[in-house]
């Protein structure tokens, strides 16, 4: 019988982001929570709580997941670096096909996903189950769910060869880029790291949002790696995306297309970003951003 297993790595928020996909897929579903708080209010038949203190490296985790995913026709996680790391390895272990970056579905065996930096939307047919999916939540808004699901403890035995030596989490108190309601991003015109942090980081903080950057800004050392938004960086889908001093390369636009409202601020009236932006203002970001903050008193 067809049945979906949602996988959350770090707790509740991921489950809530995946709920809309589960509803659209329309199959009965369970959710497996590896670490952190279990999402009990997303309409799952069962919540399987592994309760690990931390998320193990991919080789150990995929091995441990193998027995827990048996019997499910569909196995899905959020589309992020961790899911791609672990779930693609799981697909190799259980000989499953995989569809990454699912943005839409026609049936439980037909999914759409972007390819070639979002220039093309591919329709992928699943020829054999089980199938493993990573899902971009923007395409799957969730209906409200009432009631909570029973929680069962499960044993996830994770031992592998890779050893984690250290972890560096950056970004401080700012919300996660891929989950933030507002994202303020900057490009190379910011000039240096200190200016980027003050102008873009400061504006993001004032709006309660996350800071993002172009590949060019990251390449030139103005912004940290994990702030990169685009084809090979983070895919964001906030309510409001503010692009300051960003020309709008195909690779960057691939990461922001699902944003509800895109605002562009750029000195160059011919910058390609103005073709994508819902609201565009031709102007110097160093004058415009302080002026906006003054108007909003933030």
């Amino acid at each position: 019988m067809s049945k979906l297993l949602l996988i959350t790595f770090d707790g509740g928020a991921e489950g809530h982001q995946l709920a809309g996909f589960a509803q659209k897929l329309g199959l009965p579903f369970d959710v497996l929570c590896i670490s952190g708080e279990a999402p009990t209010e997303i309409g799952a038949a069962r919540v399987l709580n592994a309760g690990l203190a931390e998320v193990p490296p991919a080789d150990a985790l995929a091995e441990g997941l193998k027995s827990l995913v048996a019997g499910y026709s569909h196995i899905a996680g959020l589309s992020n670096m961790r899911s791609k790391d672990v779930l693609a390895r799981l697909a190799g272990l259980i000989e499953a096909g995989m569809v990454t970056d699912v943005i839409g579905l026609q049936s439980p065996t037909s999914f759409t996903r972007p390819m070639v930096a979002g220039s093309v939307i591919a329709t992928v047919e699943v020829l054999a189950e089980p199938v493993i999916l990573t899902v971009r939540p923007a395409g799957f808004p969730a209906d409200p769910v009432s009631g909570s699901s029973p929680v069962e403890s499960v044993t996830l035995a994770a031992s592998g060869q890779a050893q984690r030596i250290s972890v560096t989490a950056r970004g401080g108190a700012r919300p996660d880029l891929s989950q933030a309601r507002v994202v303020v991003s900057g490009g190379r015109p910011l000039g240096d790291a200190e200016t980027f942090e003050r102008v873009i980081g400061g504006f993001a903080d004032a709006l309660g949002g996350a800071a993002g950057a172009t590949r060019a800004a990251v390449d030139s050392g103005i912004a940290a790696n994990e702030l990169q938004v685009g084809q090979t960086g983070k895919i964001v889908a906030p309510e409001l995306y503010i692009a300051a001093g960003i020309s709008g390369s195909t690779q960057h636009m691939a990461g922001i297309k699902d944003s509800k409202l895109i605002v562009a601020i750029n000195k160059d009236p011919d910058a390609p970003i103005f073709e994508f932006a819902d609201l565009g203002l031709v102007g110097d970001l160093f004058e415009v951003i302080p002026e906006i903050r003054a108007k909003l008193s933030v």
Partner: protein
Amino acid sequence: MKILVPLKRVIDPYAKVKPLGDGSGLDLSGIKFDINPFDEIAVEEAVRMKEKDGSHEIIVVSIGTSDSEEQLRKALAIGADRAILIETEHIYDSLGIAHELEAVVRAESPDLVLMGKQATDDDNNQAGQMLAARLGWPQATFASKVEAAGTRLQVTRETDSGEEVLELPLPSLVTADLRLNEPRYIALPGIIKARSKPLEKRPASVMSSPKTRTVRYDAPPARAAGRKVSSVDELVAALQEKGAL
């Protein structure tokens, strides 16, 4: 150390690509091809490891038609020692590629497989992890720094929230992210030398049936045309009207 670098021939990553009008494929007229940029970074990293310690041997491998010889020659010009082309017209999904590469790894017994984190045409980000799983080797994906220490590797990898360092015993598999290195400019002597390096063709040996298949290619929906505002006042008013703040 023996390092195997699988690489893929992809559409020029800077080309504007459109689907064909009937959705049956991509319009490739006038499009050039290149090594997948992340695979080129993997080749560069292997060559740098060899330059530090001359005992390494670097084998590059690609799967596809004889067209991929061009990309293998480029990898030889960067500094790989020999190339293998698994010559086939079979249609693969990522798992099928992992199966085919698994056979090459079993035949060549490298200590390290180093490859791109994803190909810039399909954007799948699957084959490396699947191959590592098939081999039972530990993996480090999204690598931004690789250091060999005896029979172990220390890999700094990018994560959703920052970075982490993994230590892996060999043999193991590493996938390269953008900031692992900047591939060198290939000078003429390298290109000439590459012509005389061995490039061996082998038939595909697995050719497993794909479990997923792309059946249609469409242009993304266009965003509704936006508008330019002429002042900060107008911008702030529009944002407030849309409830975006």
